[in-house]
């Protein structure tokens, strides 16, 4: 039996999302068409928009559907200009950092501490009292640390700053309310919360200036041209609805499971190090660890051969690994930054799954270490 523990790379499609999508895989469904088929597609699309909005406490009209969080991040960073500067952090997702570099504005990257925490004061100080586009991810997908985005937004309120947060990893795992958070732009991903890949959204607070990056038709209120992918977005909406409904009990359960996983591993793997916050604000489902003297690549392969899907930091194309820029920013050396093994749990992960890893991984570590001890 395969055990999938890579939900931060992409969660399996929720059955509810699948069921919601199926009727839309056949018929012509352009929501902008005048005929009845078009009207039905429009209704389904708006229902999905309402469901996504509800997950984050937003008004549906503020939700711009995109092809994913990468597009949402690009739209935010290249479409919202404030003060000609971008202030971000060293541990952002590539779609934030690369979009920021491509935006043609000065970029200030704020560092993090050894557990991946960014200090709200550092972000505010980097703005230096002048308007800026601030982009700080809500939860980091590699190590699970949660950033003080609310405090940052509150401190910058009235300064002319536009505050964006990439909430792709947080949505569906942490309670989210855009009004309470106080940000202006927020990115979402469908497949991180059990919808299909290829769908996402940018929430845009009313009144926030945003220039479309994809030009063409007037779809998405002129902020994102192109016929909407109704089937995928309906799936996104259904996944958001379920994720929101089960959020509190699932988060509590995953928090207990990931803690049990860590306790089980730390008891049986000498010198294992947890990457990320030891306590406090973090994703309930994410455990990132380094085993000194063990190449993360080897552990990942051995886990995969033993039926367990995990990852080394963020997934790259064809599994071609890079030293993690997140672990590097947290002060880890190159070897450690290459070896952060990430186990990310999902709503279907069971206690038995966790015990399987607690039994398996220490054996694999002993195997790898034994080769060089011999």
């Amino acid at each position: 039996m395969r055990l999938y523990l890579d939900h931060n790379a992409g969660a399996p499609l929720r059955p509810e999302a699948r069921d919601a999508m199926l009727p839309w895989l056949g018929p012509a469904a352009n929501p902008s068409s005048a005929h009845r088929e078009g009207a039905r597609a429009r209704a389904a699309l708006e229902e999905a928009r309402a469901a996504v909005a509800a997950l984050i406490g937003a008004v549906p009209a503020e939700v711009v559907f995109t092809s994913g969080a990468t597009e949402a991040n690009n739209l935010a960073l290249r479409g919202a200009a404030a003060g000609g500067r971008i202030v971000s952090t060293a541990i952002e997702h590539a779609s934030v950092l690369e979009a920021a570099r491509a935006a043609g504005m000065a970029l200030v990257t704020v560092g993090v501490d050894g557990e991946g925490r960014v200090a709200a004061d550092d972000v505010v100080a980097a703005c230096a009292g002048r308007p800026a586009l601030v982009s700080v991810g809500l939860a980091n997908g590699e190590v699970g640390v949660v950033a003080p985005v609310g405090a940052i937004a509150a401190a910058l309120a009235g300064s002319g700053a536009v505050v964006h947060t990439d909430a792709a990893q947080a949505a569906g795992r942490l309670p989210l309310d855009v009004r309470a958070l106080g940000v202006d732009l927020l990115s979402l991903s469908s497949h991180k919360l059990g919808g299909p890949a290829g769908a996402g959204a940018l929430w845009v607070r009313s009144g926030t200036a945003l220039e479309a990056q994809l030009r063409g038709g007037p779809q998405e209120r002129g902020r994102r041209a192109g016929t909407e992918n109704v089937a995928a977005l309906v799936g996104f909406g259904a996944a958001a609805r379920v994720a929101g409904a089960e959020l509190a009990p699932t988060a509590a359960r995953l928090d207990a499971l990931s803690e049990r996983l860590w306790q089980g591993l730390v008891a049986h793997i000498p010198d294992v190090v947890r990457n990320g916050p030891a306590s406090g604000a973090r994703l309930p489902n994410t455990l990132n660890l380094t085993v000194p003297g063990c190449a993360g690549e080897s552990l990942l392969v051995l886990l995969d051969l033993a039926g367990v899907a995990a990852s080394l930091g963020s997934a790259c194309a064809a599994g071609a690994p890079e030293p993690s820029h997140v672990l590097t920013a947290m002060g880890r050396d190159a070897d450690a930054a290459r070896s952060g093994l990430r186990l990310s749990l999902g709503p279907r992960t069971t206690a038995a799954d966790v015990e399987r890893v607690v039994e398996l991984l220490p054996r694999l570590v002993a195997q790898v270490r034994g080769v060089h001890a011999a």
Partner: protein
Amino acid sequence: MSAERVVVAMSGGVDSAVAAARCVQAGYDVIGISLRLTRDGSGTCCSLDDFHDARAVADRLAFPHYVFDFTDAFEATVVRPFVAEYLAGRTPNPCARCNQHVKFDLLWRRARELGASRLATGHYARIGRDPASGAPVLRAAADASKDQSYFLFGLDTTALARTLFPIGDLTKTEVRAEARALGLPVADKPESMEVCFVPRGDAAGFVARHAPPSALRPGPIVDEDGRTLGRHAGVHGFTVGQRRGLGLGGGAPRYVRRIDAGTGTVTVAAGDRLSAKGLVARDVSWSGGRAPALGTDVGVRIRHRHAVLAARVVDSADGTVAVAFADDGPAVTPGQAAVFYRGDVVLGGGWIAGELA
């Protein structure tokens, strides 16, 4: 009882694909590994496309495939020495170094971590047995035109004992035919002949980009009588035996005879002055562990794709070996490997220090 596990090093090309297929057919438990060796991907190897090709082959043959990031190790053991050798006036052989330090050492260590007892590659070379001792010996490939034993001389007996060269007895044509018969998507993929990390084969440009600027010093081009014929931008642009690109204008063709990195002097000579009587090699290792006796006749290959030259061992001490060619040979290029053969068996090899005085 589960099958013996073998790690197959996969470049994404047809040779390693067929090597992997032959391991599957032989009943091994195969794991394919591709190595990411450079970060910028500007060379001809280890692009994402190559990884996808290797993965497509693994998928077709139903074995797992992974990519390991060896960029730091490759930089330290291959790229930096490559640059340093050029700056020292020598012409390095990075493929031999990569085999010795990266594929058959670092990758082998990883393979053991994965529970593998063997490492296979798509090199054109064979492994035979010494009739006297029974120890494994490296042999040239059946297809002499593709033989890569020159790049593999650094493998000692221990390494050879765990290594598989599954395509060493095939010709390239046979390899492609076998790939087609298996429906492998890389059957007709063109092969790369250049140093994988050097874009467009421009070694001098690569060295110039990777060396500290202070290391690139212009100097004179002189003839053997010391007359200055021209200037150059740095010794890294030259290889002993090179004719083209000297920038000396017309007249009889001249060739690089010597490179003195200390003074930055490049000495050129007419072609008939170039032939060497023999060579001196350093850091020589012998597969049997012992150097052949003085006076032993050996074959020596002084660069890839070059014919094996008849030679005789005339001096040998502490890993330095001198051989005299039976007939005057071509220019010997310091930094290239000197690989010694008896018939098609590799006896050992080392690095060319210079020509025999």
